């Protein structure tokens, strides 16, 4: 019973995090701020959701597989965001805060 509510707590927590990430995607006017905060808060939501599902499904091969998915995502997801941020920076995409500084 306690595990059921603990899992549900984690899932609701992740849904709140993702909602804040989506709000941030629409609220910020600058690409660098979006990738810095919103996209990363989405990752927090993803990990919390996977932890909640592991707690809900108990000890079995399926929950171990979900754990494996989480581990893999922790290594591959930063590579993708690093590639995007680096590509924008190398190309010289300027954001408003830099135009003011120059």
């Amino acid at each position, binding site marked *: 019973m306690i595990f059921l509510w603990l899992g549900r707590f984690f899932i609701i927590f992740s849904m709140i995090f993702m909602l804040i990430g989506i709000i941030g995607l629409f609220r910020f006017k600058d690409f660098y701020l979006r990738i*810095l905060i919103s996209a*990363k808060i989405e990752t*927090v939501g993803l990990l919390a959701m996977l932890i909640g599902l592991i707690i809900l499904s108990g000890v079995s091969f399926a929950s171990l597989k979900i754990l494996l998915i989480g581990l893999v995502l*922790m290594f591959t997801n*930063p590579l993708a965001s*690093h590639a995007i941020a*680096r590509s924008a*920076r190398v190309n010289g995409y300027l954001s408003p*805060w830099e135009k003011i500084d120059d």
Partner: protein
Amino acid sequence: MINRGAIKNICLFTLIWILLNEKLNGFVVLSGIFFSVISLYFTDKVLLGKSYSQLFHIPFTTILAYLIYLIFQIFKSGLTAIPKVIKGDCRVKIVDYHTPLNSQLAISLLANAITLTPGTITIEKKGNILSILCFDDEEITDDPELTTTFSKYEQILGSLKS
């Protein structure tokens, strides 16, 4: 070619093979060892051209401590980033960070951890200098919190050889 690192890696791959198959009997274990040897050999000879076990030699305790500290740090800085979303406006700057680590793999793992935490992203790695995109707060000038976090990662990853 046969050394302790390769045997450790083969054990790990067999474990993952059993996990993928979702059952545990003699046939699965034998086929797991067979395919682990094949994929390790193929990686060494064709894909990498070097020894996988020497290139990616990570002790188990290191990776465990790294992951636990990383998850803790992700949730912590995720909570601190929420007010910034609600406020809706921030300024961003790029700082250069010089790490004392000298292994290629350790620096990459450090950069991965930095990227995964909300609020900081690694943009470029040149040697052991990392360019990091982070907030530009007026109150905090020297980022002491950021530096202590990074030095904790470096303490964990310091056992990796180059």
